């Protein structure tokens, strides 16, 4: 007689398998980022993630937790990865390490470690960096198109450490930021001097986030509620503005393809710890993040408001869950 699992056990789904799938879904976009913006992001990933795991181990040790299982569960790995892909690739490494410190030590372990952190660790790190170092955080490397040489340079970097100045320091603001500044100066949308080649890298990376996200939904790592409600919400609220005045507000498609919309929709707000668990709650959470994001993008002081919207809505999660708790069967 064959020994079978009880029917409830379908598949081994541990934290680390989930995190591994998330990384797999992020890989294609990383490939494009290297191609467009240079290999520096790889160095950031190595150093940043190493530092994140190091801090994680220290915190676990201080809190008397077993180190191996928690470090290997990959949550710190993913949090650091998400932070690193949201900051400019040419960020000074010490700035990045400050962000990692805040996301791992302050946002995660000071609040009780994985499972207890009310705020999304990656977004806390991002917000700390954005309000502390606005000059560094808004200067992205300028892309000169997809260059295979970026990959080759990466290996050269390892073989001839520090022999040549490998990266030219041409930087600019992201399209979202540039357009915001131009609109603020009174330009009209249809004559904005933003070329396709400026937009394309960001939008292609965003599309790969979208595809990676679909992969996660397909793999049932995340449900469709959070991403769909955020995307539709940003689309809806930005089209309201767009139809109100087409000369001063960007089109809804622009808002979807620029900034961190898709990254946030599939990878950031779906963080199982800091987002609501009820289905209705997820929809409310996504819609409100979209609304706040559109407001900050159009009227706020910062180019992209998703990080602040996520952090703000993270505080509201207990409230959302309280009001969306499904009724227990059999009770009034």
């Amino acid at each position, binding site marked *: 007689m064959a020994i079978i699992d009880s029917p409830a056990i379908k598949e081994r789904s541990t934290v680390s398998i989930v995190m591994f799938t998330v990384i797999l879904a992020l890989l294609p976009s990383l490939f494009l980022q290297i191609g467009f913006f240079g290999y520096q992001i790889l160095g950031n990933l190595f150093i940043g993630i190493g530092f994140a795991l190091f801090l994680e181990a220290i915190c676990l040790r201080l809190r008397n937790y077993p180190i191996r299982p928690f470090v290997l569960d990959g949550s710190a790995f993913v949090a650091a990865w998400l932070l690193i892909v949201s900051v400019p690739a040419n960020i000074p490494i010490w700035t990045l390490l*400050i962000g990692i410190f805040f996301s791992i030590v*302050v946002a995660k372990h000071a609040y009780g470690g994985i499972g207890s952190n009310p705020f999304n660790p990656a977004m806390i790190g991002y917000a*700390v960096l954005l*309000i*502390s*170092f*606005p*000059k560094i955080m808004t200067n992205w490397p300028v892309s000169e198109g997809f260059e295979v040489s970026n990959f080759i340079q990466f290996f050269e970097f390892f073989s001839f450490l520090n022999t040549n100045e490998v990266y030219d320091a041409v930087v600019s603001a992201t399209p979202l930021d540039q357009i915001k500044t131009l609109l603020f100066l009174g330009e009209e949308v249809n004559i904005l001097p933003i070329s396709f080649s400026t937009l394309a890298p960001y939008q292609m990376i965003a599309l790969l986030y979208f595809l990676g996200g679909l992969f996660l939904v397909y793999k049932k790592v995340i449900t469709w509620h959070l991403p769909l409600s955020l995307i539709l919400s940003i689309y809806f609220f930005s089209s309201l503005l767009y139809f109100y005045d087409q000369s001063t507000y960007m089109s809804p498609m622009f808002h979807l393809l620029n900034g961190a919309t898709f990254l946030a929709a599939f990878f950031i707000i779906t963080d199982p710890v800091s987002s609501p668990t009820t289905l209705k709650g997820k929809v409310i959470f996504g819609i409100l993040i979209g609304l706040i994001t559109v407001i900050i993008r159009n009227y706020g002081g910062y180019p992209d408001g998703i990080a602040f919207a996520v952090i703000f809505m993270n505080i509201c999660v207990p409230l959302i869950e309280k009001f969306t708790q499904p009724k227990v069967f059999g009770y009034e």
Partner: protein
Amino acid sequence: MIKEQIQDGLWRQNAGLVQLLGLCPTLAVTVNITNGFALGVATIFVMMLSNISISPIRNYVPESARVPIFILVIAGLVTIVDLSINALSKPLYDALGIFIPLIVTNCIVLARVEAFASKNSTLPSLYDGFFMGLGLTFVLIILGAVREIVGNGTLFQNLHFLIGEKYQFLTIQLFDSSDGFLLAALPPGAFIALSALIVFLNLVNQKK
């Protein structure tokens, strides 16, 4: 007797770190040492004066009306301090802004009057007011120093508002202020720095 007030004020019952009273000015004004120090000294004055004003009349104050009476005395004293700072250093007065008048509502002043001066004789009350205020001042200075160095790269900025224009050279510029870690100068930085101080104090207490 005085030894107990010293220990309570500076460490065991430290107003800023143990009693967590008067957090509003503690967090709001400590963007640099000068502000922290000035507000601390102002608070010391108010606390000493209010303690020695309340203590002699403690037996005549009716129990049911004590808080309005205490507040009235404190408010009068704060007004004196407020006008004095305005007369002595206008820039400092502008920098501290609303927080000098707000010493009236500072819980630590009322708390010491209520908990100590209304139950003890005048001399211990004077000591209590002074050392409680001194403990708070130390916290304000440390917070101010940390936030100033990390957030702005300077030390003793604006100190010349306090002791005269010719001491402007005292300001130390450690690094360019545009490279500063802005968070430290913002309100969240105050919370984080304060919590770090509390952690330190608890660690030391645990070791004992």
